[in-house]
């Protein structure tokens, strides 16, 4: 019997997990990833350990990426999108490969393209050493750099064509793991994000800490000494119509704050919040530690004002005094949340599966949140709604389990 074939759309932690599970069960998997790298958002994250691991899950993504890249039953298609899906006895899927991409079979990870074309910003570097290849073509800059791209690689690993190319694939089942969009904090204008250099998003702090190990201020590269975290940026926001909690931003903010504080006990950290969400089973203990190390203020600031030396001023309400004061911070972190992927609508039409009121993929069965109205299409990870890494992985496992059941693959 021919091994069944499953297509997974989206190569973040959810898509990778589903792919790996299905490959382990003996199926062939096509893993389609739009960007030049596997790993999605979570491959960019920092370890948040103090003297001990705080269970943020970031390193699980690293491990899964390694396992997926090393699994020969998984066919990874990078810089690839879905052009068209047709249902006929399974699915016929037309995929669209970007006009310029790096061929992983030829690339030796030498980095020559990256170094030579640094100014053009047309080659980007992966976040993990397990990204294969380690470099990718920035799709936004392809058009103006076609000639430069053609000649730069000594191995001839960069493929450049006039147009995108297409290929037809088939699948017996599909897993949709297209993930989320991080909230764009520019939408909250009064925070001055993108105007004040030391107002950064939680995602940027992840990258900064991963790369340099300390909270380097974008303005001068110096280690911040007084940091404010503002929670719920973009989430739980009626004005924006975002009536959901992103579930991950309290945990990542608190863990990162503790991790930074562990490395530099003099660091002064304030968290502005509405409600603190749990991190896990040990949350009660962890929260007590946090309360000792961090100042918690239960109100969300409305404005951020520029101050000298690229510092930032914020007004805070002092509950004990019942008064308002102005305070200065040298770095402000906006704890941005999980928004539905802006392509969900297009994907939902392509596959004829529904979205929920918030714009995430809707599960058709109350208790199984991987189910869709098509019994051969499954949802995995944050495509269905906010989730942390561990929950995205478990959800993807359930989707894989559902695929196996649907395809009749038993022991």
């Amino acid at each position: 019997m021919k091994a069944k074939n499953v297509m997974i759309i989206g190569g973040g932690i959810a898509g990778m997990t589903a792919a790996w599970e299905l490959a382990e069960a003996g199926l062939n998997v096509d893993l389609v990833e739009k960007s030049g790298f596997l790993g999605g958002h979570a491959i960019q994250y920092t370890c948040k350990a103090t003297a001990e691991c705080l269970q943020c899950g970031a390193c699980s993504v690293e491990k899964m990426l390694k396992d997926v890249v090393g699994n020969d039953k998984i066919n990874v298609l990078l810089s690839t999108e879905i052009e068209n899906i047709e249902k006929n006895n399974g699915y016929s899927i037309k995929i669209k490969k970007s006009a310029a991409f790096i061929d992983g079979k030829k690339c030796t990870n030498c980095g020559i393209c990256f170094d030579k074309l640094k100014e053009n910003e047309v080659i980007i570097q992966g976040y993990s050493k397990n990204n294969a290849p380690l470099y990718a073509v920035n799709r936004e800059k392809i058009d103006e750099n076609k000639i430069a791209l053609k000649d730069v690689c000594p191995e001839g690993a960069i493929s450049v064509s006039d147009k995108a190319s297409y290929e037809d694939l088939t699948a017996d089942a599909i897993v949709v793991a297209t993930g989320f969009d991080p909230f764009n904090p520019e939408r909250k204008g009064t925070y001055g994000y993108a105007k004040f250099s030391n107002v950064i998003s939680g995602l940027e702090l992840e990258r900064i800490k991963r790369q340099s190990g300390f909270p380097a201020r974008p303005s001068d590269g110096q280690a911040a000494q007084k940091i404010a975290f503002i929670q719920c940026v973009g989430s739980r926001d009626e004005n924006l119509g975002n009536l959901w909690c992103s579930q991950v931003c309290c945990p990542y903010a608190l863990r990162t704050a503790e991790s930074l504080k562990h490395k530099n006990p003099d660091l002064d950290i304030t968290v502005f919040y509405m409600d603190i969400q749990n991190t896990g089973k040990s949350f009660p203990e962890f929260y007590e530690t946090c309360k000792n190390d961090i100042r918690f203020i239960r109100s969300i600031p409305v404005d951020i004002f520029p101050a000298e030396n690229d510092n930032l001023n914020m007004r805070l309400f002092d509950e004990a005094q019942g008064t308002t004061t102005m305070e200065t911070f040298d770095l402000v972190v906006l704890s941005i949340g999980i928004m539905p992927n802006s392509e969900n609508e297009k994907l939902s039409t392509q596959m004829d599966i529904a979205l929920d009121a918030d714009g995430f993929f809707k599960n058709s069965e109350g208790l199984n949140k991987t189910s869709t109205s098509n019994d051969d299409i499954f949802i995995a990870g944050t495509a269905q709604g906010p989730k942390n890494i561990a929950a995205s992985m478990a959800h993807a496992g359930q989707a894989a389990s559902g695929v196996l059941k649907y395809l009749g693959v038993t022991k």
Partner: protein
Amino acid sequence: MNTNTKLQTDMEKIDMATDIAVIGGGYIGLKAASRISESGYNVILAPQHNDTDLNFSILDVPLTEMDRIKALETEVANNTNVEILPMSTLVEAKGVPGDFTLKFVSADTVLEKKAGAVVVATDTAVNPLNHIYGLNPAPNVVSLSEFENLLASEETKKEIQNNEKTVAFLVGFAHEGSPLLMKRVLNSVSELVGMDGCSAYVYVNNIKVADDGLERLYKQCRDNGTIYFKLQKAPTIIQENENLSVTFHDPVIRNDIELNPDIIVYEESLIADKTNLSLAETLRIDPGPMGFLQKENVHRLPVNSNREGIFVVGSARDVQGLSKSWIDVDNMVLRVKQLIGDGTKSISTKAVVDREKCTICLTCYRCCPHGAISWDDKAIISSLACQGCGICASECPMEAIQLIDFTDAEMTERIKEAAAVEAPNAPKIVAFCCQNSAYEAGMAAKAFNYELPAGLQLIKVPCAGKVDIHYILDALVEGADGVLVLACHHGNCKSESGNTYAQWRINDAYRKLAQIGIEKDCLEFATLASNMANDFARIVIDMEKRIGQKKD
């Protein structure tokens, strides 16, 4: 019996029992039984107590799904591939993955069963927290479960409605709570404010809205008239027979606010099943926080215990409702298939015992974090259970255990080679790196061109727990100026305690070095994660600086 011998080849063919034991007969256990049998295995289902009596709201079951879930009971009862044992207690569990022998005691009969794998699917229990508020249960002072029951019965619900009751809910002051509890509160509140004349006051600390649909439900209740008082500490409550008073201080208007509800609903906590701890002991698995059966360690997620072939699902491992618990069940099915397959498997041996050297002191049995070791007249390592960490090999006083991929002879050779590499004008540093964390971080530091010492050599080990004290001393004797042992962060060791063993051995080495007058500086233990190339670079550069200065 799969016995390791000195002559053993690397591959071992193993026949496994394909029956799977499920402990716990609630809706999680039933689902587990159903899904396992759908995957082609027979199931032995061992209910612990009257598991399906559990209140549906506690498991967070949507009303629309109730019938489907109840149908599981008949489905499993009629499933010829599921053997349902009488209510029983697991008193003994012997053997290895693929070949467990379980002893259940039911009334006065003993049942012995063979199973390839064991799934623990115990339920959660409810713990009322009135005492923390100093409240005495009364008709007008009830727990959340009791209030749910009042709303569930038409008669009592009418009574609440007809008397236009004002109800105060207390949430999050006695303990932090969870989205699961919050959802139950909000469901009750929602129903209450939907009844003409009734009103709800919710005194709440952190509103736990971190689950699908909860923020929406919370706002909906507010729009329907629910009043939330978000407080940092519990309000002052006076309970005098019929009369109830709830008071708190409002910091904005700087005034006390007192209300007199007709009913107070106090919170509960969801706690681990009372049988969990004895199950953990019998099955030799590590219990986690608050009596749940999984340690906080990302390597265990979602459904692994520290022992291969013993899986923990649903509320056995954490506070979880049915939807999340069933995610666990589906993941468990994947793990069972991966382990048992069709019942036969060729597996490469990771560790072998030299039966001539073994004096059966049982050090290995005690230190193996994965419960992989048993014995006949000598120690035996189960190839299926062994994770190849090498802790046993490093702890065995007779040096009777060798890892196939990391034999002592090979390690000595690697150490010699590493210490022999000369880098001009730079101190020689040998770093023993756990393959799960530090080795990955080190390779990443190289790939991303972080500045690294010229004289740095990495030696990959399966787990920091495999770094013998000999290795450290050998490296120094062979000419290394500095030795690093780089392990996973505490709580992130795949073998749970490999990093702790490594740290003990370093301390031991410090003592030995002190005796011969060598300073501590040349030896360091540190912990790392695989994704932290930066931390890796910092640690090795720091050591280079320290010992470099000494050398000058």
